[in-house]
């Protein structure tokens, strides 16, 4: 009898432990953040190891670890290939138990990762990818989109240049989701402002030689050559454009997306006078300066942060605040809903909000690259031309056709 009692007691204990265990696991305060970015290709300086630095800064500034949370950060390479990116994301979630996927500079890769995050009910903080479809038809309750998008870039740069007299355009477009989206958005803005699109050429991603495309742009006699590409492709287009006398011939080059690391690489002699839209510049105010100086000290190459890395910081900070409020990160949809429920406020973008479609709203800025004479030192590259208020900078909620917006 006593033996049976012992058995019964042991059995009860086992059942109780089994019942308690999952509840305990859910309340365990550990987080894994997977930064999936370009660690080896043309967008490495824009995101890359710098994005990992930005995530670590956000963790420190959120103070979440002092609340008893342990946060692990892993940096992964998507190699700019959608299939690789999807595999890496799946592995991060299944094997490393990632709670959130961050950055993903490359819209094609971001679009491949999006359904996986939704299926697994995790969180996707999109920073480096810029296709506006991510908060349009492809929006999801598991993701938010910080930094800029193709709609904002098109309206900022395209609108400003067309209004100031650049009426005819020719596009050199990166031949994938992002480039096409940027070309389409900008073309629409040009036409809406009384301009005309004379033609376009679609260049494969990571093309070393742009001279053929530049020659076609030159032959089109368009006033403005819109560069619907990014990173290394933009650098090569601008550099070779100077070599072929595009600007000297009276045509304007308009980089529709530019990172400060691109300008740093080109040098002011080549890049001076370029007009473009950006949501971030390190030298905007005291807070951005303080953030950027801290970032620069931690970044392996001592670069200043790009707008992508700034957005990584901002989105991670908001995510951590939401997780802390909820006390639980297992339900991705709940965390995203929480992120949208209170305003954003940080050193890089100031105060803002996240809309129902996942779009984070901030002011954006129209900049012009300084001449070597105007620049006072390293990284003093931009002068501010205009500030576009938050409510005008992004596509109106109703125009995006996001199924989450009713």
């Amino acid at each position, binding site marked *: 009898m006593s033996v049976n009692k012992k058995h019964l007691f042991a059995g009860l204990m086992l059942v109780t432990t089994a019942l308690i265990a999952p509840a305990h696991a859910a309340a365990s305060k550990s987080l894994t953040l997977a930064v999936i970015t370009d660690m080896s290709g043309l*967008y*490495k300086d824009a995101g890359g190891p710098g994005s990992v630095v930005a995530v670590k800064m956000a963790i420190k500034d959120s103070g979440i670890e002092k609340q008893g949370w342990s946060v692990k950060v892993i940096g992964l390479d998507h190699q700019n290939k959608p299939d690789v990116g999807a595999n890496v994301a799946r592995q991060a979630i299944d094997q490393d138990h990632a709670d959130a996927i961050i950055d993903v500079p490359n819209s094609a890769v971001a679009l491949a990762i999006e359904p996986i995050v939704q299926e697994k009910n995790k969180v996707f903080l999109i920073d480096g990818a810029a296709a506006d479809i991510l908060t349009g038809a492809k929006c999801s309750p598991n993701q938010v989109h910080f930094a800029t998008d193709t709609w904002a870039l098109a309206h900022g740069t395209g609108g400003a240049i067309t209004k100031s007299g650049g009426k005819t355009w020719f596009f050199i477009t990166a031949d994938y989701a992002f480039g096409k989206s940027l070309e389409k958005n900008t073309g629409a803005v040009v036409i809406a402002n009384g301009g005309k699109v004379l033609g376009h050429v679609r260049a494969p991603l990571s093309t070393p030689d742009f001279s*053929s495309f530049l020659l076609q742009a030159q032959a089109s006699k368009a006033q403005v050559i819109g560069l619907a590409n990014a990173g290394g492709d933009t650098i090569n287009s601008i550099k070779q454009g100077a*070599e*072929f006398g595009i600007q000297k011939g009276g045509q304007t080059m308009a980089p529709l997306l530019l990172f400060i690391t691109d300008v740093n*690489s080109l040098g002011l002699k080549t890049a001076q006078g370029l007009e473009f839209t950006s949501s971030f510049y390190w030298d905007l105010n005291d807070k951005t300066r303080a953030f950027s100086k801290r970032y620069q000290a931690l970044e392996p*190459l001592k670069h200043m942060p790009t707008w992508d890395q700034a957005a990584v910081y901002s989105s991670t900070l908001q995510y951590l605040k939401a997780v802390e409020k909820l006390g639980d990160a297992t339900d991705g949809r709940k965390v995203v809903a929480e992120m949208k429920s209170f305003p954003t406020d940080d050193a890089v973008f100031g105060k803002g909000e996240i809309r129902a479609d996942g779009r984070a709203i901030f002011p954006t800025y129209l900049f012009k690259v300084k001449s070597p004479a105007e620049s006072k030192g390293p990284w003093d590259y931009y002068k501010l031309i205009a500030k576009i208020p938050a409510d005008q900078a992004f596509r109106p909620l109703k125009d995006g056709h996001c199924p989450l917006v009713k």
Partner: protein
Amino acid sequence: MFQFMHYPPQLWFGQLSLGLINGSFYALLSLGLAVIFGMLNIVNFAHGAVYMLGAFCAWFLLNGFDIPYPVLVHGHLALASAHLPSHLNMWWALFLSPLFVGIFGMILQRTMLRRLDGLEPIYGLLLTFGLAAIIQGLLQNAYGSSGEPYDIPGVLSGGHNLGFMFLPNYRIFVVVASSIVCFGTWFAIERTRFGATLRAATENPKLVQAFGINVPLMITLTYGLGVAIAAFAGVLAAPIYQVNPTMGADLIVVVFAVVVIGGMGSILGSIISGYMLGLIEGVTKVIYPQASGVIVFVIMAVVLLMRPSGLFGRAS
């Protein structure tokens, strides 16, 4: 004025000139690969990396070298670096960069590649592929991915308006310089006594050695030559592209396709197919630009189907 396929002649002439310029790079790189494969039987996947090293070497020669050395900071080992100033312009670089990179290549050959003698070419391919990844990774960690600017030398800046296009002087220089190097290499291997010995040494190393010729030294020098040609191409490329750790990786796969089309190991084949594919790619960029990244591979597939040993290769 005539029009061909709806495109004005200006566009055609322009694109063909550009094709010739890009072909110059293909020819220089595939030539080095062909020399190395023909003489050493090594599929040198590190070729893109040495091309990139050539460009970086030019950049170092202009901007100075940072030499890292270990120091003790609070009892821990750390890396500090000393800056060795240097202001040698591109004319120096065209000579010094291939020399330095060539010596580097010869060291690689002596210390590593030589150990693969007599093994299947796949071993050489794997080793050189790994070396390329290491070299590229190290430079990327040190210099990032955006690249460093390298200006066109003063005398070659500017250009000529040819009526159908604006042709930068520097690009004309690239075509001339690469043609000279290509012709020089072909002549040295196919038409001189040294070249004859070299070819004989590939066919039958033992017999040539019996004549008192130092065959291992010849092989090392040949590898050095192939690598030096790639470095020369890298210096020429520096002012056109950014000096970028991935510049070789972007090109190497295309160049391998060029070599396969020309016929593995055929010197003349690699030169001719290099220029030819540059031209075909140029034309593709007008007709259907999206395909310009794959056209070379389509041609490679067709050539392999029709002539498995390549256009100029000898069937074995």
